[in-house]
């Protein structure tokens, strides 16, 4: 009988091999896949996220945990029923026009994938029109924008305006992040939420898609 506490620990410790092997073993024993996901995998990601927010873990541990989570998710998903197997939502993520910083946004994207979202990474220096086009193409529920400079964060507002002018504002939730932005700025430009870290971004995305 597989001890699923090992799966929880494997994800928290970023052990991909143990995570995948434990998941495979549990599935072969007929353990309910929804229970594996709900009772062990998601709590494990919540745990590493909490540790990150308390400075007990840092970006490398987050990424390793997300990788282990993703490995197990790939095994779980074919076993879920049609309704259960749908991703939590589709998120477009990109660094706004004028800004070339990539890595913070990629880390957030990786964490969102680990949390079960389908993530479409638009890259950096993404124009407002490209965000608008991508919303139409991918039928996304959430747009996540990143900026690392005070000089580029203004592109977030420009992008939100472009989304509004395209008649798409009510179809997507918009979240923002990056060193210079704040909740106050988020409110000012009409975004739906802000997070200052990758774990917070996952929580925010979950809250936004309801």
């Amino acid at each position: 009988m597989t001890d699923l506490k090992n799966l929880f620990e494997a994800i928290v410790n970023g052990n991909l091999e143990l995570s995948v092997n434990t998941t495979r073993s549990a599935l072969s024993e007929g353990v309910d896949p929804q229970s594996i996901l709900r009772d062990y995998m998601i709590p494990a990601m919540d745990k590493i996220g909490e540790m990150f927010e308390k400075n007990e873990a840092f970006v490398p541990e987050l990424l390793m945990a997300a990788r282990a989570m993703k490995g197990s998710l790939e095994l779980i998903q074919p076993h879920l029923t049609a309704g259960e197997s749908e991703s939590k939502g589709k998120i477009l993520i990109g660094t706004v026009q004028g800004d070339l910083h990539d890595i913070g946004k990629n880390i957030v994207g990786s964490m969102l994938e680990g949390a079960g979202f389908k993530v479409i990474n638009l890259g950096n220096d993404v124009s407002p029109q490209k965000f608008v086009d991508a919303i139409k193409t991918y039928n996304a529920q959430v747009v996540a924008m990143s900026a690392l400079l005070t000089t580029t964060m203004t592109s977030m507002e420009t992008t939100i305006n472009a989304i509004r002018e395209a008649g798409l504002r009510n179809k997507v939730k918009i979240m923002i992040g990056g060193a210079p932005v704040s909740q106050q700025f988020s409110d000012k430009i009409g975004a739906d939420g802000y997070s200052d870290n990758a774990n917070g971004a996952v929580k925010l995305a979950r809250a936004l898609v309801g």
Partner: protein
Amino acid sequence: MKSESFIISPRFEAIKPTVDEVITIMGYKPGTEPSFVPLLVDDLINEAQFHSTAKGCYSFLKVDEISIIHGSVLHEKGYIKCGPKIARQLSGSDTVALFLATAGESFDEWIKIKGSLKDIMTEYLCSSIGSVIADKVADVIQDEIKKFAQTDGRGITNRYSPGYCNWDIRDQKAIFDLLPAGETGVVLTPSFLMKPIKSVSGIIGIGLGLQQGEYMCDLCGMTDCLVKRARGK
């Protein structure tokens, strides 16, 4: 008084990051990191030497006046806005040195290649190594400036960069206007972002009685700085 500019192309050995330096900018206190991190970082530092095209430049400007109230340095060729916090730190300088340091364009390309392989961990570690390299090029420049100052008994301040300590990043243009940035391959984009990204610019004060101090994290208002976290600030 020197007025010309100086270009440096340090050997990799002179700017090679240590594992501890890299893990510190990720937020760890050395010794608290998971065991896989230093192993990966060490391998990547060794690989980094083939991708670093580090360069730097600096020049000196005679100071006419430093105004803390206006947050500016009036110098022989004009003025630089740096904000009151930094102007205060530069007080007592008779000269300022402006500098620019970069890990180089090919280093940015290397990070992009790692990113394109969807290996975000490696991309992140390479990015952290690049940040340390750019900073170590700035260390080499700072040492040269210090030696120059010491020839006539002067000292130097810490170095300060736009984007920190309330120094508006747009003021970076004034630094670029006064340096031979083209010689280092660094350009400033219309949004005042340096390209290559792994680059750092800034200012150092020179004057009698000036001393470098410990890095004063409290001076900087950044709340999400990982180095601050590692220092327990």
